[in-house]
């Protein structure tokens, strides 16, 4: 495969949370502004010649028919080329992948990848929970978001002896990391006992096993490696990416102890980047629920299948662990504004590789970071992006 090398020259996000006071458009403008400000040598916004927008659920803020024109208008770039990507929970990471391919193709020079999501303009009842009544009238009936992942926890516990304490340890770690991230939705510690005492949402997942509903936006500016030094002396490069799919219904899954789409996507990304799991300094992975992070670190090859629970409990994924996972606080603490999530994760990778992550900075030895999302019906879509600071 031959493609032009792509660089990240700017990245930023807004403070995540229930942003009742901000419109979708204001969140988009805030994220774009943060990305522009982050460009070391400055970048005139008129230099942006294409925008890729990730928004997964326009339905949650009353914009069912949203296209690609809302964001350019909101950020003062009306007229610019713009495409909207909707690809489930990996919408943001897939928008990044597509943006990288656009730059690599040489068709556009400076591409803004921006994810924006309003999760709380509708009540939980009418928004996320309402999906219990959507989809196939029998095979999806009652399927709220936790139902997509809880069956994997049940089976993982059954086959590998994974315990509620192991699940809880993921929440404890990510909430701890969130305390160190000024952009995180939650900035408070939780204990294993608190997780285990929280209300049962969808067995075996309790409230603190679940990510919150978070409004947010994040933006990244991409250009070719050739032009990167016009904007910064510390560019980060796109080393590889992969996307993969699986069947959309739970009853079509070949396994309930892993998400094959993640394995496929990461395999493609590792091959493209010419690296393996052991070359990574850190990873931002999809932890919509605690069990998801345990599945992820197995499916991404960080630990052996079935060992994700003990590895989490024993701190292998902590900031100072063998492979730090979700230093930003992850979806569990930083939040999961769906379209923005992947781009916010990539922003964290960018900060970490540039060693600008402050108190949550992990040791950068080999110069590679991985970002991952998985989701959609039956967790049937996964995207993995790998960034590097190595020229």
């Amino acid at each position, binding site marked *: 495969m031959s493609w032009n090398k792509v660089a990240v020259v700017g990245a930023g996000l807004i403070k995540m949370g229930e942003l009742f006071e901000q419109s979708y458009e204001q969140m988009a403008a805030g994220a774009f502004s943060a990305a522009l400000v982050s460009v070391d040598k400055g970048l005139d916004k008129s230099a942006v010649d294409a925008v890729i927008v990730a928004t997964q659920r326009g339905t949650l803020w009353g914009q069912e028919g949203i296209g690609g024109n809302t964001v350019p208008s909101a950020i003062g770039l009306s007229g610019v080329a713009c495409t909207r990507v909707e690809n489930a929970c990996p919408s943001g990471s897939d928008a990044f992948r597509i943006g990288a391919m656009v730059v690599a193709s040489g068709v556009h020079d400076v591409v803004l990848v921006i994810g924006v999501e309003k999760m709380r303009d509708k009540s939980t009842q009418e928004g996320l929970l309402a999906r219990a*009544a959507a989809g196939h*009238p029998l095979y999806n009936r009652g399927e709220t978001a936790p139902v997509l992942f809880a069956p994997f926890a049940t089976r993982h516990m*059954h086959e590998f002896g994974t315990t509620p304490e192991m699940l809880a340890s993921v929440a404890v770690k990510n909430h701890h990391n969130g305390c160190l991230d000024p952009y995180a939705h939650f900035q408070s510690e939780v204990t294993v006992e608190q997780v285990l005492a929280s209300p049962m949402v969808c067995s075996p997942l309790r409230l603190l096993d679940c990510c919150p509903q978070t409004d947010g936006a994040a933006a990244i500016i991409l250009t070719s490696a050739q032009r990167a030094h016009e904007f910064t002396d510390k560019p980060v490069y796109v080393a590889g990416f992969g996307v993969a799919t699986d069947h959309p219904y739970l009853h079509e899954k070949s396994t309930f102890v892993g998400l094959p789409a993640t394995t496929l996507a990461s395999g493609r990304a590792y091959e493209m980047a010419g690296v393996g799991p052991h070359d990574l300094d850190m990873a931002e992975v999809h932890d919509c629920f605690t069990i998801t992070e345990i599945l992820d670190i197995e499916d991404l090859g960080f630990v052996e299948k079935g060992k994700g629970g003990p590895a989490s409990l024993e701190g292998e994924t902590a900031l100072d662990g063998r492979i730090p996972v979700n230093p930003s606080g992850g979806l569990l603490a930083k939040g999961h504004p769906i379209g923005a999530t992947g781009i916010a994760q990539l922003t964290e990778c960018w900060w970490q590789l540039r060693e600008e992550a402050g108190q949550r900075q992990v040791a950068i030895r080999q110069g590679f970071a991985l970002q991952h999302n998985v989701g959609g019906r039956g967790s049937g879509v996964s995207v993995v992006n790998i960034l590097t600071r190595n020229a």
Partner: protein
Amino acid sequence: MTAPPVKPVAVLGVGAAAPSLRLAASDVGTAWGSGGGRGTVAVCDADEDTLTLAWQAANAALEAAGVTPAEVSGLWWGTARPPFAEGPSHAFLATTLGLDRTVAGGLSSGSPHAGMEALLGAWDALAAGHARVALVVTSDALVPGLGTTAETTTGAGAAAVVLGAIADSAEGPSTNGSSPAARLVARTTRAMPAVDRYRADGGGATGDVYDARLFREEVFVPLLTETGRALSQDAASPLAAWAIADPDGKLASAVAKRLGAPLASAPVYGALGDAGAASALLGLVQACAGTGSGATGSSATGSGATGLFGAIGYGGGRATAVLVDATRPVPGAVGVEQLGAGRRVGYPEALRARGQLEPMEDPIPMGLPPGGAAFVRGNPEMLGLFGARCRSCGTISTPPSIHPTCIGCGGDELEVVALARRGRVQTFVVNQTMPPPFQAPLPLVVIDLDDGARLMVQGSPADAADLAVGDTVTLSLRRYALERGIPVYGFKAFRVAGAGATVGSGQDRAAQEGGR
């Protein structure tokens, strides 16, 4: 008027079913401050209705009769309150039972007499030679008016009978090649136009103007006694017992006393209350089981009573009596006490289950409207529980309409097959957090079916507390939703408790059928 001679038909098997819930009359009294009522009545859970009860009883009767759905030439369904006042009620039931699309028969409704009308319709078709095997299903889940005395008497239940034609030459053999255990040998009907219970267009609950003294003395005792005596005159010997539909636990015994033979059906009212159109056949099944005294445990399938049994059903100003001559125990005859004791619920839960207590906030609508194209495409495969089997690798993809290619190998040569209705739990969750109309706890179960297909369906709240990976479950028809007045039916998973078969469910038979 002289009635033409009646051609007997064979009784090949019977089945019965009861809903899940029981409501004590005393709880109704407490709610209304009227202090009243004894005993309990059967109430459908939110996912049960007259159709799901009919499905259960029909499966049990087919299993008992040893008749496959493909052998059934007609379905006659009697219910005072079909799931659609107008709509595809009969087609839905026939599809869920796996009957052929050419199946004859019809739906009788409009009063509790509908059960007897269905029986007579089937009988006529068999006698005329237009049908060889007839499935008669009677079911009801009536909705009483709030605050009326009917709340303490109105119940629910279902009974089914498989009938076979008898060759003209002799009393046998029947269609199944041996002499039948029992035959329907005589029948009579009387009319007496009087309004007792009624429901107008658009009416939710059944209105009840039953004035005990008026109707007992002037209408029902005379009408039923006259009908019963007329039937007795056709009997070659004295009747062994009567089965009489009962509105209040008193009328049937009064009539039986006048007719001079024991009342075998008393336990039906005692266990279920007034089961409407199903009452007469439920009583007949009870009589054939030989447990009319109400004693429990004496009648496993295979034992049972013999002799002449009279059954009387009525309603809508008409009464019909039929005579059954049982020379051997009737296959499938069970006492109502074997249908399960049900789960006792309080008055608010019973009202909620019956749809009479609703939240003020609007329930979340189904993603696809039940009247829309997706249901036109999907109803046969949802009601019949079909999958698509790959001719190359054997993998079953479910449901067929969303799987033009195989989930296993991508092959595109698929054949539609009925799925097995038994399997083991691969994994599950219990959802505790959902908006109305959902009720927690709601198990959602991924099942590895006996035929190798995998399915995710809702489970039973009763299994929520201790469901486990590896548990054996069977699939049973339930109502998934009632939206814009349209019921949506599908299969749900129920754990098989221990080794005991579930009487009245017919799920074993269904599993065999689906597994072929």
